């Protein structure tokens, strides 16, 4: 589709993974070409990426662990599907040009419940765990508006693959829909062949390739006739040559299969190594320490809360009986007072006290008793009357206690204390809630970074690397055999040439063969020259764009791209710096490279980037956000971002300096058309689905 300007105009999902029914319409605006879709983790950003890729190419390359999770069809929808009924997942992608919708691609996956077996099995068609009782079928549809305005449509999978690859070659999809965190993988040797293949496909080179193939066939035909006409020895050599060529074809076929296998292994290696790079050991250690600190903090809060709660309980428990019995206690107090007034309560005088007064011969008032027998007798009588004065003591105790309780009866004071405690408890509850949230957040992050999972990913990566080594070793050995076979074939050809010179009959075929060989070689040269021009253009444009983006640009002598599209960053000393680039520089290099390929091949596809800032942090992240709006000014760009990546203030961890959020940086540019947010929505059936809302 070189030369075309296509814009993504609509994507719609129905029962696809977390989406029940969701549609995003994109505006075809030449000025405001940037759309933001934000959402926390597990809200469906990766599902959007995978959904588009699945719709176009029937694969979901952005999952970390294929086949271990939920199926393509929304789980709830599957659960609700009863016996002999079916449900389906559907994704549609619509591209438009200036005249309106131009291409619409739809892929559907149907599930029909044939029996009630709920045993879960992995179903490769459903791409996940699914009840064994389901039967899965798939359908697709491709529609295209033709030049005369009529519509062409096909629902044949093979045709659709052909048309979609013509529209957007799968090899070049990585320039259209990609994960920003995996951009550094562009520059690996194994991945560069894909780029080369994709560039060839959009550059019209398959036509040249077909011509080369045709001419090569003629060479073979003429060579065979040349040999047959050069005598029996030539015929025998030709037979040997043909047999060896068949073996060579087999070897080359095996080599191609291994190359494809290697590409698939590479995809997994990229995913696993990206996942591992996101979970560095030190980061997890830091998280664990933070979790321990927060747990200590929570314990302190809980202890303070328990103390406040105890204070509140004590206050209520001690005051409730008193306040219930307030009236009756006050009455008792009054009874004791009146009883004392009526002298029903004896004075608080003990017999021992009177004994002491009698032995001293002096009354408590100071009166001398020694000469007053009458008064002495009165005191002796008093002693007898107070023999039960214990009752006076207890009554007096009651008087004192009840008097002291008076202050407790002040309702306002108790209310005040209760209010104060309630406020303190509220404050501590808020602190506790905050602490719980922090712990929950760390635990969730740690879950994502589950050590077992990390080890598992590490093991998978090791397996992949072992498989890769085996495949590469096998390919290397096969390369030797291919080289050897080709040498032998060349030897046979040389023998045939020698013999044909001796036979007049074969000379005509020799001339024809030589001419066909010249044509083949000329076509190959043309193809190589075209590719070299494209590659040089990509190289110089990448260098130009990248140097304008990075501060290290002046130290970089040049950016080199070899025949296989392997990129190198050469400094003044002639040393390749690719491996020493920072995450930010690598991101900019990848974006520059993508921009260059798109410019040079004149393929103005829309671009969808997941986690564009995921690999960079601090000032580099802010710089990336400042650069993005100006990057590929005519290209429709959709960014899928996490809330923390997008809306949080950016901190420079070295200087602790605060920078504005990515959102603030991007919003200051007028290229943003709209912001969407992916949210979890609770349905009336009590489950939840992901929906998209305009921010």
């Amino acid at each position, binding site marked *: 589709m070189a030369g075309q300007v296509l814009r993504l105009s609509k994507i719609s999902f129905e029962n696809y993974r977390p989406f029940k029914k969701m549609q995003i319409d994109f505006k075809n605006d030449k000025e405001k070409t940037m759309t933001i879709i934000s959402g926390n983790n597990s809200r469906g950003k990766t599902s959007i990426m995978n959904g588009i890729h699945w719709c176009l190419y029937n694969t979901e390359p952005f999952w970390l662990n294929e086949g271990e999770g939920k199926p393509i069809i929304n789980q709830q929808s599957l659960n609700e599907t009863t016996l002999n009924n079916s449900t389906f997942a559907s994704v549609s992608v619509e591209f438009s040009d200036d005249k309106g919708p131009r291409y619409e691609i739809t892929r559907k996956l149907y599930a029909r419940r044939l029996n009630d077996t709920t045993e879960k099995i992995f179903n490769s068609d459903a791409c996940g765990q699914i009840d064994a009782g389901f039967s899965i079928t798939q359908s697709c549809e491709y529609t295209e508006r033709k030049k005369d305005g009529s519509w062409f449509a096909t629902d044949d999978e093979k045709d659709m693959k052909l048309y979609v690859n013509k529209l957007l070659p799968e090899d070049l999809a990585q320039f259209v829909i990609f994960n920003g965190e995996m951009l550094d993988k562009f520059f690996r040797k194994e991945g560069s062949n894909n780029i080369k293949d994709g560039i060839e496909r959009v550059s019209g080179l398959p036509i040249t390739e077909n011509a080369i193939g045709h001419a090569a066939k003629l060479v073979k035909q003429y060579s065979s006739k040349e040999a047959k006409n050069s005598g029996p020895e030539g015929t025998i050599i030709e037979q040997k040559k043909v047999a060896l060529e068949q073996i060579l074809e087999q070897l080359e076929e095996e080599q191609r299969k291994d190359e494809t296998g290697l590409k698939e292994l590479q995809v997994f290696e990229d995913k696993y190594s990206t996942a591992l790079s996101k979970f560095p050991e030190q980061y997890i250690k830091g998280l664990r320490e933070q979790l321990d600190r927060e747990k200590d903090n929570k314990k302190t809060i809980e202890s303070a809360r328990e103390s406040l*709660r105890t204070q*509140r*309980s004590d206050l*209520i*428990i001690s*005051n*409730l*009986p*008193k*306040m*219930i*019995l*307030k009236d*009756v*206690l006050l*009455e*008792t107090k009054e*009874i*004791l007072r*009146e*009883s004392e007034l009526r002298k*029903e*309560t*004896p004075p608080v005088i003990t017999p021992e006290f009177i004994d002491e007064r009698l032995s001293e011969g002096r009354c408590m008032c100071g009166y001398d008793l020694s000469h007053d027998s009458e008064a002495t007798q009165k005191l002796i009588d008093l002693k007898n*009357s107070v*023999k*039960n004065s*214990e*009752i006076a003591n*207890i*009554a007096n*105790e*009651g008087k004192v*206690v*009840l008097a002291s*309780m008076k202050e407790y009866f002040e*309702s306002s004071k*108790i*209310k005040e204390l*209760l209010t104060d405690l309630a406020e303190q408890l509220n404050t501590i509850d808020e602190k506790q809630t905050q602490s719980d949230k922090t712990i929950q957040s760390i635990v969730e992050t740690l879950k994502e970074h589950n050590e077992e999972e990390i080890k598992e990913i590490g093991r998978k990566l090791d397996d992949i690397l072992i498989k890769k080594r085996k495949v590469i070793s096998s390919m290397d050995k096969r390369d030797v055999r291919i080289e050897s076979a080709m040498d032998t074939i060349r030897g046979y050809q040389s023998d045939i040439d020698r013999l044909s010179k001796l036979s007049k009959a074969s000379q005509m075929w020799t001339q024809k063969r030589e001419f066909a060989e010249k044509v083949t070689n000329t076509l190959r040269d043309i193809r190589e020259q075209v590719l070299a021009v494209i590659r040089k253009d990509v190289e110089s444009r990448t260098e130009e764009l990248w140097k304008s983006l990075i501060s290290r640009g002046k130290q970089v002598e040049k950016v080199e791209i070899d025949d296989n599209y392997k990129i190198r960053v050469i400094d003044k000393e002639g040393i390749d710096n690719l491996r020493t680039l920072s995450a930010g520089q690598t991101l900019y290099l990848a974006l520059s490279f993508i921009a260059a390929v798109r410019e040079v091949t004149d393929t103005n596809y829309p671009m969808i980037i997941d986690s564009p800032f995921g690999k960079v942090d601090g000032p580099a992240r802010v710089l990336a956000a400042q650069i993005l709006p100006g990057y590929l000014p005519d290209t429709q760009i959709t960014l899928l971002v996490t809330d923390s990546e997008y809306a949080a203030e950016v901190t420079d961890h070295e200087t602790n300096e605060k920078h504005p959020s990515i959102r603030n940086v991007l919003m200051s540019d007028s290229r943003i058309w709209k912001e969407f947010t992916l949210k979890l929505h609770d349905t009336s059936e009590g489950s939840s689905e992901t929906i998209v809302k305009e921010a």
Partner: protein
Amino acid sequence: MSLASPQKEKFEFKFQKHASYDKKHYQIYNDLTRVTGSPFYRKEYTKIFITAMALGYKYDMKEKLVERSDSIPTAVFTTEEKWMMISIYMKKTNTTVSALWEPNEILKMAEEYANGGIQYLEMLYRQGANEDPINNMEDELMKCLSG
């Protein structure tokens, strides 16, 4: 009332050694002191007894004990608590200081009110199972404070 009492030569206000709850209420006494969310967690049984007694008095829930536990040491009652029991007795028997001659009768009446009130206290505790049970008790206290 006259000070002299014909029944006793020497007055001594002393409760019997143990107060009782009805054994059928053992579980709630146990739960209230042992369940961490309880307002009476790790507190003496006397606190439950007095609160139950006050609630029993308030809502006129008085119930004779069927099987005495004889397990709450009376020495643990505070002076205030002792006077709450005395006050209820005075009120309900319409007596004055003469009531002080009858410590065990005072205790018996307190036990019967506590025996009635414990059911109401249990209701307050169980109703608050989904939130802090102390909230119901606070509501009860607020009623008294507002009244």
